[in-house]
């Protein structure tokens, strides 16, 4: 995890040496000076905790009585991978990320973006407005609204009753589905915006040429538009995966991980181990697992982006 350490402040860490002349080194140092406040903040509040995280994950630290903290090696991790609750949380996190982000937000965002191209202007404005409204709302408010929506006596069931479909106590019988749908409701705006921008950037000549050659709308979408916006799709997938991986407030507001542990994703499990069971060391080990997963996605994301200059 040493790569997580902040970069040296400006050029301060590695003054440029050009044959012993001090002037360029001093100059680079001065040039790097404005980065100092940001670097200090990042070092103290992000890199510091991450370094702590790596250390604590190998201890048996508990919330009460920090004096008795011992180094326990990889015990926390072997314990985690034998803990059915942890494995359950891993599985639910996978379901949540794949279901709500990769399938839900990504597909719905793409579908809406494609359909909106052909819709009339007021409808386009309406869709944009409501989808973005759900996205701008604070997390806890979104959680509360979704709780009300999926509640036994809530809007979804009245809607289902109205069309004579069987209703469900969603939050009780299939809480993970409810939180997935909630995350789709809340998060699709992001994918919609990414895809709308990407589709607008597709050269119109390409689409027209395909149409001249007799390609129908589906073929134009599959063979022309989707291949052209592929980089945006990949970037979007990375970003929404990272965002969904760390969703806490939405699920916690809706179900608190329950009933039992039926919607307990890794962030909720981590929180409960650390604060409700007072096992800081164990909770930190879970945090480290989450961080490593996030870091892997982050690396893939950077690879996709490639800094084009210098």
């Amino acid at each position, binding site marked *: 995890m040493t790569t997580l350490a902040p970069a040296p402040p400006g050029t301060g860490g590695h003054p440029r040496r050009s044959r012993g002349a001090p002037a360029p080194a001093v100059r680079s140092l001065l040039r790097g000076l404005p980065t100092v406040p940001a670097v200090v903040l990042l070092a103290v509040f*992000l890199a510091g905790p991450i370094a702590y995280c790596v250390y604590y994950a190998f201890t048996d630290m508990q919330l009460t009585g920090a004096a008795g903290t011992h180094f326990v090696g990889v015990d926390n991790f072997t314990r985690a991978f034998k803990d059915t609750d942890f494995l359950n949380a891993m599985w639910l996190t996978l379901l949540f990320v794949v279901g709500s982000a990769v399938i839900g937000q990504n597909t719905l965002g793409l579908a809406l973006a494609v359909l909106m191209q052909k819709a009339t202007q007021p409808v386009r404005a309406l869709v944009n407005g409501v989808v973005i409204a759900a996205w701008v709302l604070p997390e806890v408010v979104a959680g509360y609204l979704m709780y009300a929506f999926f509640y036994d006596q809530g809007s979804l069931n009245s809607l289902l009753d109205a069309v004579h479909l069987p209703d469900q106590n969603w939050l009780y019988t299939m809480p993970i589905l409810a939180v997935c749908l909630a995350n789709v409701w809340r998060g699709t705006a992001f994918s919609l915006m990414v895809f709308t921008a990407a589709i607008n950037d597709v050269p119109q000549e390409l689409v027209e040429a395909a149409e001249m050659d007799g390609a129908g709308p589906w073929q134009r979408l599959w063979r022309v538009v989707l291949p052209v916006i592929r980089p945006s799709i990949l970037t979007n997938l990375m970003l929404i995966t990272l965002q969904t991986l760390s969703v806490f*407030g939405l699920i916690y507001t809706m179900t608190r991980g329950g009933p039992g542990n039926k919607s307990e994703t890794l962030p909720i499990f981590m929180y409960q181990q*650390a604060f409700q069971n007072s096992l800081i060391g164990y909770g930190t080990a879970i945090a480290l697992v989450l961080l490593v997963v996030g870091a892997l996605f982050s690396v893939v994301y950077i690879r996709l982006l490639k800094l084009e200059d210098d």
Partner: protein
Amino acid sequence: MAAVATPPAPPVSKSVPAPAARHPRRVRPGRLAINLVLIAVSVLYVLPLLWMLLASVSDTNSFRLTWPSALTLDNFDAVLNVDTTYRPMLNSLLLCGFGTAVTVVASVLCAYPLSRYRSRVRRPFLYTILFSTGLPITAVMIPVYSMFVQVNLIDSMPGTTLFLAASALPFGIWLMKNFMDGVPIVLEEAARSDGANTMQVLWRVVLPLMRPGVVVVTIFTFIGMWGNFFVPFILLLSPEKLPASVSVFTFLSAHDQTQYGQLSAFSLLYSLPVVMLYLLLARKLGGGFALGGALKG
């Protein structure tokens, strides 16, 4: 990094011309059908929002979406007091206002050398920043809590503010650097040859030219912090220090069965500032603000 964002693209009327009737085997769904599908999706999207709106002015408490029998402002009256609304909102404003200020100032300063000078550490530095924008901040909260306990920063508003600022920094720096890259360097050189130093150049030449960019970063940082629940939930303890994001949650659990109307009224009040800011952002910068730079690198 919930704040990562691209703006809605400008409405572009590039829609493909109507299909030629030459291809009868491809029945293209008509515009009407597409509009209907989109309206149906919008209705599903709007139901929860509509429920909040109606519940807040309704005299009955129900999770069902029903038209209120009588419109009332009692729910707003009930929540508009110091403990329920004013103090939590003020706390949110303090945390997010100062947090945003720190983030914006630090990212402007940090973006300048990154945008203007080439050096050996620039590239690794940029990669580190980009990498940090992807890290799940949720996962960092437990070690942050332990660290804050050790240095006695738990339940400290300034400590929480600084952490919020730091967590928003990677994205702020990245965006700011991209906006700064768009400012032509020629003008700076003119100012420098007139004898201006770096800070003067940054303050008098670069910042005025990238004001829209600074506004975008400021508003997005603020919106992200305003909605942040987990950070203050972990780092603040005293009820009188809690921001609205946490107080609405405690309100939610404490009044579970009866106070949907009041909760909705409060949720509405709490959401209002960010919705307004977003509208301001979308209107003011219209189609021109290409936050897309955040994605394209």
